[in-house]
């Protein structure tokens, strides 16, 4: 008798998940375990700081602009949920605790897959930054008085919104894996984007956001701050119930989705491609194969499209100014690198051994990978920028130069960092599934944090430079770009060392 949706299974799933996590962490070296503990500690410290700091800043600043933030908070809560939905949908329902080819030998139920995906969902810097932002803003609005009562509903919302997003993510994955599912999924995405754009053009976004159900969360916080205990408790119970309900509910679409074949992946894996003319140079031959590895891969194709469109649409909705748009390329480029760039040799999979046996200099393979990574990131960044600037009006020369320089500089930073990680920390991964990541989830969390910090700081620098003459942007960009080129050349030298290269190749092809 199938027991996949029973209480027994649900209870056992927690034990199975624990076993999978133990299996995953057993592969970590002692140094990495220490890093993991430090990372977890850092998250706790930053979360506490994101709450305490703004709460007391409210007293210091006498609640300056708190009224504005109150009006924005429900939209921010909703935005957190929507972006979690996008993340879950883009990753085929959610990330895997253990890669599919490793888990295939074990009887992993769909409930375990669902709980694992839920556990993996926060492991990216975007989730944390949004979480810290709404925690900080809420703490600032209400101040330090009865802070735990104010913050508790927000923390519960972070959990509830993630669980709700997971339900939607699995449902979309179920649709996508059905007959004609790819077309239906594209229609749904197209209709959603059209609806959002229509609302923007009709200037109905603000009106709609005012009616967001997340206004209720703000009310619960207010009950907490005002000491209206009964109402506060009731609100918290409802939020927890929705969250737990979503966790339970998610098992159903997860089961339905995971029992369907990976239609899009199978279609691409059996796809035919008419032969093109023979390549005109060694580099062109290398680049051609590297490009096909990206554009014929489901997770990479989908991830790049989502990355290019989402920030652009958010920027259109938010009517961003040119000076603020300088932050967007960093976000897009970091996200793009996290799709495959941080472990870029994994694109060859088990073909890495054969490729390395071909008579080509190691530098050529390195340059090819750099070219392909940079061009993919550039395309994604340009799409975002074009969308974001639709409502930004005509830029000054300084603003245009700042945006162009910010884009080039963050691409340089991200490509050089990604290539360094690709050489120093390779992983054997199969990038077939949309749920796959180029490195273990915990490593990905660390990578995303580091990339986001650097690219956001760079974006902020150029945001400031957008206000001044274009010369300043160029003057700042040149040394930054030079530093990236230097780092790339250093990594290329490392790659050329046979012992290092053979380790990378043996790892990614294993």
């Amino acid at each position: 008798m199938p027991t996949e949706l029973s209480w027994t299974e649900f209870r056992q799933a927690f034990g199975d998940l624990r076993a999978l996590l133990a299996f995953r962490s057993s592969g970590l070296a002692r140094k990495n375990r220490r890093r993991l503990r430090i990372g977890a500690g850092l998250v706790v410290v930053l979360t506490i700081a994101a709450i305490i700091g703004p709460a007391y800043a409210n007293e210091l600043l006498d609640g300056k602009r708190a009224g504005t933030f109150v009006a924005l908070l429900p939209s921010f809560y909703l935005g957190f949920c929507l972006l979690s939905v996008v993340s879950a949908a883009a990753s085929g329902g959610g990330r895997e605790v253990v890669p599919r080819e490793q888990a295939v030998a074990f009887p992993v139920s769909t409930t375990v897959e669902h709980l694992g995906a839920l556990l993996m969902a926060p492991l990216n810097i975007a989730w944390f930054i949004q979480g810290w932002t709404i925690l900080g803003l809420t703490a600032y609005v209400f101040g330090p008085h009865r802070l735990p009562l104010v913050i508790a509903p927000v923390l519960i919302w972070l959990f509830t919104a993630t669980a709700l997003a997971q339900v939607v993510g699995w449902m979309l994955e179920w649709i996508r894996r059905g007959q004609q599912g790819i077309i239906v999924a594209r229609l749904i995405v197209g209709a959603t984007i059209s609806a959002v754009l229509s609302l923007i053009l009709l200037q109905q976004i603000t009106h709609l956001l005012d009616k967001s159900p997340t206004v209720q969360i703000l009310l619960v916080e207010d009950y907490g701050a005002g000491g209206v205990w009964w109402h506060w408790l009731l609100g918290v119970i409802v939020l927890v119930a929705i969250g737990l309900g979503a966790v339970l509910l998610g098992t159903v679409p997860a089961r339905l989705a995971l029992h369907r074949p990976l239609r899009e992946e199978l279609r691409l894996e059996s796809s035919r491609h008419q032969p093109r003319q023979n390549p005109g140079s060694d580099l062109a031959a290398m680049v051609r194969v590297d490009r096909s590895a990206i554009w014929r891969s489901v997770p990479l194709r989908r991830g790049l499209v989502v990355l290019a469109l989402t920030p652009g649409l958010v920027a259109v909705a938010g009517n961003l100014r040119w000076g603020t748009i300088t932050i967007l390329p960093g976000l897009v480029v970091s996200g793009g690198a996290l799709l495959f760039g941080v472990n870029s040799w994994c694109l060859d999979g088990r073909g890495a051994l054969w490729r390395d046996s071909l008579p080509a200099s190691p530098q050529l393979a390195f340059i090819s990978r750099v070219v392909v990574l940079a061009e993919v990131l550039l395309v994604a960044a340009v799409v975002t920028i074009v969308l974001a600037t639709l409502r930004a009006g005509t830029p000054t020369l300084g603003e245009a130069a700042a945006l162009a320089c910010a884009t080039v500089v963050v691409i340089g930073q991200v490509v050089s960092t990604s290539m360094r990680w690709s050489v120093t920390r390779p992983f054997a991964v199969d990038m077939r599934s949309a749920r796959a990541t180029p490195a273990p989830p915990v490593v990905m969390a660390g990578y995303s944090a580091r990339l986001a910090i650097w690219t956001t700081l760079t974006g902020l620098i150029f945001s400031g430079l957008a206000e001044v003459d274009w010369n300043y942007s160029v003057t700042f960009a040149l040394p930054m770009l030079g530093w990236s080129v230097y780092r790339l050349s250093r990594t290329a030298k490392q790659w050329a060392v046979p012992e290092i290269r053979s380790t990378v190749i043996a790892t990614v092809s294993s």
Partner: protein
Amino acid sequence: MVGGNVVHTRSVEGIEGQGRIEIRDLWVRFGTVDAVKGVSFMTYAGRSTALLGRNGAGKSTTMRVLAGVIPPTSGEVIVNGVDVRRDPLTVKRATGYCPDVGGLVPRATPWEHLQLAARLRRLEGWEDRGRDLLERFDLGDAAQRVTAGFSHGMGRRLSVVLAAFHQPDVLLLDEPFDGVDPLGVEATLEVIADARARGAIVLVSTHLRDLAMQACESALVLRGGSAVASLKSEELMGEEGAGAYRALLD
């Protein structure tokens, strides 16, 4: 035969003026593990040699060193007079390598693999030979298909095609018969025979003793990273050969 002494794989002492592979005291170390421990052997143009042994005996690692993919930790590996450590690019030009695992870029088609190999190996007018090889290995219909969807056997067959495609001086086939159907096995045996006929050095690493003996005239048995015996094919054939081989594995 074992250790620092060079094992001449059973054959005449080379054919004057033609190439040879010479391995002297090869050690390959991964971290704290010695994958190959002081293997020495020599083989000549026009000869085919089987590398036999249990899992972890060092067969694939030795093949990878010869293909220029892994550098030797110590020792000397000379392919056609070229030191693999000093000039791996020249060695790569001379060799055709079928790796033991996969060996295919997952999202490229067989034809794209051939295009890349042809470009980097400076081949002109290679298309007919490419088509012919794909047909011989029953891959003609799949020439434009992405290899990620290939069965294991199809992948193995294509790997052999890619290794033999440019008619290399040294043909290195690591587990070429693994999971391959009888027609594929036949085609692989033909490729090996063709290579020998045109004077190439052939090395075949496999667990399938019978097929190895069919394809090669001599065998080098490895155990725990060291060479333990060099035998003629006839010595490893039949029941008696199976017993002799079994005895070498323990």
